[in-house]
């Protein structure tokens, strides 16, 4: 097929095209770097507009996955089908759903160590990654289950989410790589652009009454314990190294940590979310097969695959910007294909030194 115009590519990105046309364009993108590049630019522009205008339209709305393809694709079908006067409420609910999905990832962290000193925070750290495959039917089922809930929860009172600043990026020379606090993987014989990004931490302080009202409206029999009210959870992402090349980029950093207040059992937070009735059977079964969910960062998606990278489990996200995420010895790696899908990310990852 000849190259589609920008409008059609945006329709593809927004999942607004008929299924057969969507499939043809997906196949076209597999071998057309020009269209893949255009698609990425459109995504950037769309994410920018979405982030800014979403902020205006739903001010103070804290949507953790704002600007991401996944978040958009989850939210989009829900608000599209909603009646006008209910649309805003649906978006709020979907933002919360996205937050819950993300929370499965954020809170599913391994207790790398539990401090022996009772009055110190518990620290949980990611040790492996796992897929959670959502089919189109799953998304529809979740959407319908959420629409069936009757409570109109105000996201502003859901809790407080704060960051302690903005990310700061600092360029690095090749010589400075030896000063990093960890040794990143790099491709042999290639020079790239190197940088270090300091990422602000995020503090989440839930209002338990409001969260529980939401859980109940979704049919949950389980709720968060009242003792969690006002307790602050902190997500810390250490400085992250990025190496950029013409056809891919690789991020390396220490595994993110979740600090949980003293006396809080992380299972009391996880279980009500995992047992929510809104999850379709297929999703529930997948969660059940992850025997050590608390040791796992769960990555949801419609086209994700488990892979092994030199003996370490990873997840390959196979969209138009294929991305491979894996974790090994306390470091996580995110390898992104910027060539329009020409790279074999698994082979590339295994060749890094």
């Amino acid at each position: 097929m000849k190259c589609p115009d920008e409008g059609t590519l945006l329709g593809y990105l927004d999942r607004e095209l008929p299924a057969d046309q969507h499939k043809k364009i997906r196949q076209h993108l597999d071998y057309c770097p020009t269209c893949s590049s255009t698609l990425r630019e459109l995504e950037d522009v769309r994410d920018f507009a979405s982030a800014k205008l979403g902020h205006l339209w739903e001010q103070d709305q804290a949507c953790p996955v704002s600007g991401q393809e996944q978040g958009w694709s989850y939210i989009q079908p829900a608000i599209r089908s909603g009646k006008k006067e209910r649309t805003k409420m649906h978006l709020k609910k979907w933002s919360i759903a996205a937050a819950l999905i993300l929370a499965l990832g954020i809170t599913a962290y391994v207790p790398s160590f539990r401090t022996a000193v009772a009055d110190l925070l518990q620290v949980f750290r990611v040790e492996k990654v796992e897929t959670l495959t959502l089919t189109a039917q799953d998304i529809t089922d979740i959407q319908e289950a959420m629409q069936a809930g009757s409570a109109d929860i105000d996201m502003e009172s859901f809790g407080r989410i704060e960051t302690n600043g903005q990310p700061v990026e600092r360029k690095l020379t090749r010589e400075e790589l030896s000063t990093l606090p960890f040794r990143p993987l790099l491709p042999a014989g290639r020079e790239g652009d190197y940088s270090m990004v300091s990422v602000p931490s995020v503090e989440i302080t839930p209002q338990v009454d409001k969260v529980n009202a939401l859980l109940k409206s979704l049919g949950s029999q389980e709720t968060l314990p009242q003792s969690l009210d006002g307790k602050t959870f902190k997500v810390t992402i250490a400085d992250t190294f990025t190496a950029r090349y013409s056809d891919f980029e690789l991020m390396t950093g220490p595994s993110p940590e979740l600090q949980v207040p003293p006396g809080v059992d992380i299972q009391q937070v996880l279980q009500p979310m995992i047992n929510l009735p809104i999850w379709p059977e297929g999703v529930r079964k997948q969660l059940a097969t992850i025997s050590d969910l608390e040791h796992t960062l769960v990555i949801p998606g419609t086209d994700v695959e488990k892979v092994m990278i030199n003996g370490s489990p990873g997840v390959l996200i196979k969209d138009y910007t294929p991305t491979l995420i894996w974790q090994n010895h306390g470091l996580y790696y995110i390898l992104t294909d910027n060539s329009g899908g020409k790279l074999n990310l698994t082979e590339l990852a295994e060749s890094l030194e």
Partner: protein
Amino acid sequence: MELMATTMEKDLERMEIEDTLSRLPWRDGLLLKLRMEGRSYQELAELLDIAPASVGTMLARAMKRFRTEYEGKEAGQDEVPRRGNVIRLFG
């Protein structure tokens, strides 16, 4: 104090966004607002009386204009920057 600063930043950003929208052609602004409300391409075509096949093109153009206006640069002169690293951490 930090919360107060955050609120002020949000108010400022809101004003900037509203100002940007006001400087766009009215149909672009309307298209973006309706899209943010969650309207489908088909609904946008009906509401604005345009061909469904043109919605994507008009939307792409409106988004680019919005960004260019917001960033205060002339159209076509700036490269679209890469997505932020923070997003990519979980993206």
